């Protein structure tokens, strides 16, 4: 808990970061940068959890643990995603998301 900084500040921070991530997800063409955008999203969620835990419910550590597990999940997700991206690169010889659209309609 930081004196003088209300919890809302954290929340706004996280929100901005979250939607920056969303924006990145929607605009970046490179699959890897899209993945990075999702990491931003997850990170912003973690900030939320931590801030709530510290500010409002410091008796327990649920938020903190949740972030911990989110980080672990994010790691495994990233691992699999990167594996698939590499595979994509082998198949399509590009990792531009707009070119990965063989299936549509």
């Amino acid at each position, binding site marked *: 808990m930081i004196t003088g900084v209300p919890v809302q500040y954290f929340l706004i921070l996280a929100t901005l970061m979250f939607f920056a991530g969303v924006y990145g997800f929607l605009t970046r063409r490179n699959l890897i940068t899209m993945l990075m955008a999702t990491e931003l999203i997850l990170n912003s969620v973690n900030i939320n959890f931590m801030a709530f835990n510290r500010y409002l419910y410091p008796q327990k550590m649920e938020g903190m643990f949740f972030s911990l597990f989110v980080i672990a999940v994010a790691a495994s997700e990233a691992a699999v995603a990167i594996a698939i991206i590499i595979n994509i690169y082998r198949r399509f010889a590009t990792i531009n998301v707009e070119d990965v659209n063989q*299936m549509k309609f």
Partner: protein
Amino acid sequence: MSPDKFLIMRHELLLTAVVLVVLIAEVFSHPDKKGKIITLSVICFGIITALGFLPSAEGEIFGGMYVSSGSRLMMKNILNIGVMLVFLQSVDWLRKAENSDKISEYFILLISTLIGMNFMISSGHFLMFYIGLELATIPIAALAAFDKYRNNSAEAGIKLILISALSSGILLYGLSMIYGTLGTFYFKEIAVSFSNSNLQILGFIYFFTGMAFKISIVPFHLWTADVYEGAPINITAYLSVISKGAAVFIFIIVLFTVFPVIIATWQKAIYLTSILTMTIGNLFAIRQQNLKRFLAFSSISQAGYILLGFIGGNQLGMASVIYYILVYIFSNLGAFGVVLAISNASGKENIDDYNGLYHTNPKLSLIMMLALFSLAGIPPVAGYFGKFFLFTAAAEKGFYPLVIIAVLNTIISLYYYLLIVKAMFLLKNESPIEKFKSSMYTRFALGLCVAGIVVTGFASALFEFIRNLSFGI
């Protein structure tokens, strides 16, 4: 906590054991005899499917993080049956040379997603829920990209994992809001202290979209068709049936037990999305040529019908959803089983290729027809009963307009199901799919599907059983 309490988690433990057995077998088996692993895994899984039906204690362990109840056990058993069918159907596929190097990985990944689903269903805490959800998603993305030599497969994999990352991000964001207002992740505590504030509703809606993604509800469904088309057929089957079924189960549990306070809100949300889902799914399905893609859209519209069971928030709805998923497993796997068998035998996946199928492969055609009729809700097969109960559940709470829209949608869906029937029975073909005979596994699986399609409807005891379980969430 006494050790015997662990037995409450029997399903998960057994599945983990199977994973270990397969791992060990993989490590110690001769490279040329990997084929044996198939048999081993299928048998092991068969055993634990059977074991799942043994009576089991109910209760909560890990401080309420893990909840077991009759209905949740039932759900797990239903999923087990479905996975068993998928395994049986994929034997032929796994035996192909190109897949010989990833047999055990296939089983391990698939079973671990099942473990994830089981934990998800049994969760009493959002952390468990979340981890189960991810465990049920991430390996599937890898499985979707399993056919490494096919572009589509890789594309399916990347689409699935990225969009699921986005969706779980949104879901988590929603959860964080709920946590922020209530300070807890335990289902029970949330249910007690939930109020109706905007922030909570916002959190709930973000959560809702995350779940909607898993069930592929419009407008969160767009990944479905591409992933279904690109993934190997048995993975598509798995995705459309097991993965969706598990998500439906946990979603209905969460809605009914965690968010009963804001029932008015989620009824509206479901009202809108179910109409959209049914209609859009149907409209897209009309035009499909690829059977996998076709079944993808069909499964989207099926999700719309399933939502009708949600909307009443009533016991009947709960029961009918569980029942419908069971029926849906048999029906959809019946359809996918035929598609898979034909794809394995001839590599053909387009509706046109099915022209005149009845004249060369009458049994497969009949199975396909039964499955499609069941999906369309035509009596006397099980799908009819399933749909009827879903509609009844919605009607019980007075959602007649929704019911009417839904039944009118079944007409559209009947139209495109009949297109396949037409191709198989009515149309002629210059070069029809050759007559072939599938392996014993496939035939056994299809036989089970047919039995399920035919018997499940008439067996009222089954529905009664589910119904009596249902509110012991």
